[in-house]
């Protein structure tokens, strides 16, 4: 039941106070149609598709991407990348509904690579407002990830993770042919968090070659072997004008393997 004596701004403020109480927000949705947009803003602020079933369920509940609450999402976390691409093709650009996402997190585990097409293409430039990107890269070719990164010109924070020890025999030459040649590449003015190693090293080399440079304030680096020492030095040199915080870690397990088998 709408209350005509209270302006919408006040009602919105009341709903905002309940931002972390999902049960109360769901109750608010039942009060009045005028309450729905504000409650959805909080209810759908963070969407996670950790398993394929969640994605199927979302598509059943919201079959029309243009009217789905996807555009309320500020954080989108997808773990089942293998399911997204066909789902996106079926629904005519389903993933594009998440057009206001600010934080994008993509986890690509080993199983995702089986019979993979270009999983990441639907995510290219999905939201012009994306400022933060996290990719668990393990099962993805580096060039795909680089294309994804370069599709977000306003990217401030980038985190790339991936454990070399979980990866085997994926062809991924250091020369990265990328399909995207951005005129305005991101400069990463926030944080760069990089778990170096054979998968992420070529991406970092390419980022270092961006003519406009990269200028993060916070740098978190995990080095896996001797080759990473050179990359750490290059990153420090590149970021030295803006760097305010450095967190450098040596992946002890990877380093131990390297010390024992330096040519592997």
């Amino acid at each position, binding site marked *: 039941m709408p209350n005509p004596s209270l302006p919408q701004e006040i009602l919105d403020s009341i709903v905002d106070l309940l931002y972390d109480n999902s049960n109360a927000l769901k109750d608010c949705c039942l009060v009045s149609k005028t309450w729905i947009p504000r409650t959805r803003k909080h209810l759908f602020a963070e969407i996670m598709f950790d398993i394929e079933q969640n994605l199927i369920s979302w598509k059943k509940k919201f079959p029309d991407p243009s009217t789905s609450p996807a555009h309320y999402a500020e954080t989108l976390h997808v773990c089942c990348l293998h399911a997204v691409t066909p789902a996106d093709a079926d629904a005519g650009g389903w993933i594009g509904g998440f057009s206001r996402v600010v934080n994008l997190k993509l986890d690509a585990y080993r199983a995702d690579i089986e019979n993979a097409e270009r999983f990441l293409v639907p995510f290219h430039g999905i939201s012009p407002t994306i400022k933060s990107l996290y990719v668990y890269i393990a099962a993805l070719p580096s060039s795909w990830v680089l294309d994804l990164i370069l599709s977000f010109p306003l990217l401030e924070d980038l985190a790339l993770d991936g454990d070399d020890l979980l990866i085997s025999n994926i062809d991924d030459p250091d020369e990265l042919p990328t399909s995207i040649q951005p005129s305005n590449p991101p400069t990463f003015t926030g944080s760069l968090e990089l778990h170096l190693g054979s998968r992420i090293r070529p991406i970092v080399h390419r980022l270092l070659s961006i003519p406009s440079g990269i200028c993060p304030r916070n740098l978190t680096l*995990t080095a896996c072997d001797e080759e990473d020492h050179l990359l750490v030095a290059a990153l*420090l040199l590149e970021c030295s004008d*803006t*760097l305010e*915080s450095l967190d*450098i*870690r*040596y992946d*002890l397990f990877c380093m*131990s393997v390297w010390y024992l088998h330096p040519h592997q």
Partner: protein
Amino acid sequence: MIDLSKATRIKGVTFGIGSQDVELVTMALRTLTPTHQALRQISIHEAHYSISIELGADVRRVIEEQTASLWSELDQLLVQLWESRSILPKMLYNVYPESEKAMRELVGYRLPEITGRGIVDLVKI
């Protein structure tokens, strides 16, 4: 080598290392110059603390003997940084509660000067 000489805006630096890598920290901190006016925090997390303590006294003794001189150099440098810039170093650790005493003894053995003068913060993470 970690060269911080040009990163003159840096406010904080954290190293996560193994006991063999302590020399990297010393070398990195030696690249600091008087122009690093903003630097306020140096943190060191030596993960082998936890491992060596859990493995027992014999393993710990071997590691200590191998790396004693390297830690001594770092100890002296941290004293200098405290005296010249009042930067209180933090030693980060993560051990079981029952191993905390052994961990503190190990830090005291490796970094006797800063420990003895009370110019180090031990921080459980």
